[in-house]
């Protein structure tokens, strides 16, 4: 029973971090019509960001650990968002048509960012000490505080994103562009700016995911390779255009993967995810929440 | 030759039957569901209710390439062509149903393969002459004038030697001279023994060409009959006047 609850907690955390990446993928696809293979790298850079500010160059050493950690996350998010926006404006946008070209270009960006991280930070795994020491006891089960913090952090970011998309004028503009970018342009919405904002936000939350998970697992240049594949599976499962679908998909994939990983084996878990992905595409290619074209 | 179909929300319980050698027109205001009907017959869309029968054979929801193999071919409303292929190459794709060698055999230049290529090229030449594009054989499709592009679309459809051809707005975007040329072409198609079903907005063309006309509005059939009857039909006139808002 204890193993089950522990796995459940891990699964929830994995699902939430996956959701942060998946939402970003979904936003970029919905608003910019781009399949961004490099997206996982922004997650990776977020992880390196907190390492940079907390371990390599601890400029917040004087402050309480929690404050330092939060500031490090926020700075990382901003930096990664800026990198993402630069990539979008100067690398993706000029080659948006035909669609295959921008896909290959995003693969190129993925390669570049991985290699750059390798050169800059070296291949050795990095670790970040978490400000959340200790455990929480619930009956016979104990969860580490750091995992709990990651879960809460993810939920906060998802909630903030929901508010932005659903309640603000910017969000409304983004939804308009996602539905029909030409019509939105005619209505006076500056699609260029919306593209930048969408990209920035997506990269920021991906970075947040990497930053939140950083202290729990190791940080290295290839840490995004598995998550990006699972994120794609989540988005396919949920339906390529649907944000709630992406979150739902992230949970299905995250929980399945964690449970299979614990009870059978990590390698096998990824194979299962892959089979789910193919299965969904055979049975309902538009995903659980997607609509027919 | 009879066909029945009945539909989904865009096309609600529409029944139509077309006999061999006829030219039948479908008209109606924009959004009435005319192209949807074509899409249902050629299986681009799935039928929710009803059946499509061709030559007394049920072809409902058969895969699009099989529908074509049965002898039912369509053109598209927009100028759907292989834009950077030449006219010849476009027509060659249309000829695929005439090909008998397998993919594997084509890898080698056997005598049968070569003989087949001759035959197909002859068919292609024939088609290009029929639609009047012989001089544009090696011209890229995207460089053709709009009227010629429409002709090419018809040529591609004709290349599979269909029994029934469905033309989706064949004269859209054409000037009067081109429209007359198209009407002559359609009559030539019928004279070759091919049945024609067409969707059109231009009344003069429809009345001039069609043996029978069906009128759709909001997805239902509101009238059917010979052109003169339709012209004087009250509900038809109302549908068009009403749609003019």
């Amino acid at each position, binding site marked *: 029973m204890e193993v089950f609850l522990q796995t459940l907690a891990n699964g929830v955390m994995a699902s939430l971090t996956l959701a942060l990446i998946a939402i970003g993928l979904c936003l970029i696809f919905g608003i910019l019509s781009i*399949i961004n293979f490099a997206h996982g790298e922004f997650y990776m850079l977020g992880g390196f960001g907190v390492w940079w500010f907390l371990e390599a160059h601890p400029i917040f050493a004087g402050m309480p650990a929690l404050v330092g950690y939060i500031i490090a996350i926020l700075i990382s998010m901003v930096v990664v968002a800026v990198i993402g926006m630069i990539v979008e404006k100067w690398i993706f946008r000029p*080659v948006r048509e035909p*669609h*295959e*070209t921008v*896909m*290959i*270009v995003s*693969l*190129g960006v993925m*390669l*570049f960012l991985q*290699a*750059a991280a*390798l*050169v800059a930070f070296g291949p050795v795994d990095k670790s970040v000490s978490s400000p959340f020491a200790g455990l929480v006891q619930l009956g016979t089960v104990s969860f580490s505080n750091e995992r709990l913090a990651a879960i809460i952090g993810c939920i906060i970011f998802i909630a903030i994103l929901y508010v932005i998309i659903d309640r603000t004028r910017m969000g409304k503009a983004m939804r308009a562009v996602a539905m029909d970018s030409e019509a939105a342009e005619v209505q006076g919405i500056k699609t260029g700016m919306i593209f930048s904002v969408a990209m920035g936000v997506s990269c920021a939350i991906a970075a947040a995911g990497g930053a939140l998970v950083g202290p729990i697992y190791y940080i290295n240049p290839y840490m995004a*390779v*598995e998550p990006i*594949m699972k994120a*794609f*599976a989540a988005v*396919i499962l949920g339906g390529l255009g649907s944000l709630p679908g992406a979150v739902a998909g992230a949970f299905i994939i995250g929980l399945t993967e964690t449970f299979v990983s614990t009870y059978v084996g990590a*390698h096998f878990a*990824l*194979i299962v995810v*892959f089979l789910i*992905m*193919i299965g969904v*595409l*055979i049975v309902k*290619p538009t995903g659980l929440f997607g609509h027919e074209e | 030759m009879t066909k029945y179909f009945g539909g989904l929300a865009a096309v609600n319980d529409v029944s139509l039957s077309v006999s061999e050698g006829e030219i039948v027109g479908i008209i109606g205001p924009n959004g009435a569901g005319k192209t949807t009907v074509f899409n249902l017959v*050629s299986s*681009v869309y799935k039928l929710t209710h009803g059946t499509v029968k061709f030559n007394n054979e049920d072809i409902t929801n058969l895969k*699009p*390439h099989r*529908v*074509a*193999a049965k002898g039912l*071919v*369509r053109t*598209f409303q927009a100028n*759907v*062509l*292989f*834009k*950077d*292929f030449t006219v010849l*190459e476009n027509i*060659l*794709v*249309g000829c*695929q149903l005439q090909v008998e060698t397998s*993919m594997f055999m*084509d*890898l080698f*230049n056997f005598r049968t393969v070569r003989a087949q290529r001759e035959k*197909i090229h002859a068919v292609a030449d024939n088609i290009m002459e029929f639609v009047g594009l012989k001089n544009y054989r090696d011209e890229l499709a995207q460089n053709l004038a709009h009227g010629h592009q429409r002709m090419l679309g018809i040529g*591609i459809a004709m*290349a*599979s030697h269909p029994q029934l051809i469905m033309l989706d707005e064949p004269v859209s975007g054409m000037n009067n001279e081109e429209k007359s040329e198209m009407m002559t072409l359609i009559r030539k198609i019928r004279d070759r023994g091919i049945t024609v079903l067409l969707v059109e907005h231009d009344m003069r063309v429809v009345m001039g060409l069609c043996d029978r006309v069906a009128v759709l509005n909001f997805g239902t059939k509101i009238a059917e009959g010979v052109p003169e009857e339709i012209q004087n039909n009250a509900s038809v006139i109302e549908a068009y006047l009403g749609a003019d808002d």
Partner: protein
Amino acid sequence: MKNNSTTKKVIIAIVGLAAILLPVFSSDPYILHIAIAILIWSMLALGIRIVLVSGHLNIAQASFMGFGAYASGALAMKLGWSFWICLPLAGVIAAILAIIVGLPTLRIKGAYFVIITLGLSEVSRRIWMMWDSLFGGPQGLLGIPPPDAIKLGGLAIMFNSKVHYFYLAFVLFVITVFVMWRFEKSRTGLLLKSFPKADMLAESSGVYIMKYKVAAFALGAFFAGLAGSFWAHYFTYCSPWDFTLMASFYMLMYVVMGGTGSIAGPIVGSAVMLTLDELLRPFKEYMPMILGVILILVLRFMPGGIISIPGLIRDAVMRKE
């Protein structure tokens, strides 16, 4: 127009002759090794190109190579079968795998297909690492036997020098190029090229799209399997880390850099990029970054690839007149 075709034939003849005579000029194993690599990677790149032509991006080509390599190695080691049987079998196994993956995935939107191949890349590696008994686990298969000697008349050609492997690779390369060339020149090639333009139109003309797409995908995988089998017996080992997503991506890059417009593209791309890779060996660390940048620049400013350069030059010259 006529000049073009004769020039092409002359170029092919010269290059072909130079290739065949290479070991005569230089028996340096290093040079031969690079030449072998170029030949083998060209095969892989050509396999990616034929699928790209039909409108799909395959980033799992290294996985098909890997399955070919592992299949060939395992059959030779566990069952003692001759390389000459394992080689074509490896191709067939890779092709069957492609058919299994392609049937459900080639019918839907292109983006999904790419994602599936991305997944396949990762999953393949795990399969090889998991299945110890068959694939040797994380270390891979070690001690794969080299090809057995060919006996011609009274002569026996043993595979104990790079020269022999070079000629074997050359033969495989020529076979690949020939088949790809015929495939593309035939009506199948025309049909494949029509799909990315207007597949609805092809379908309504009676063309069964899936048949052709799956065939192209399987063909590309077949040659990847052959390449893999060669690789396994040439190096006498294969490990899960030889056939990664990165490798697939490099193959794709060679195609894009060379140009997708013709058969020559992937070959030129492989030759240029592999040579560049060797020349820039001191900067090994930065290579992926440099390649990434070059790829992005090529796609932005020279999307036709290297083989489009003569055309671009010709256009520029003609415009000046």
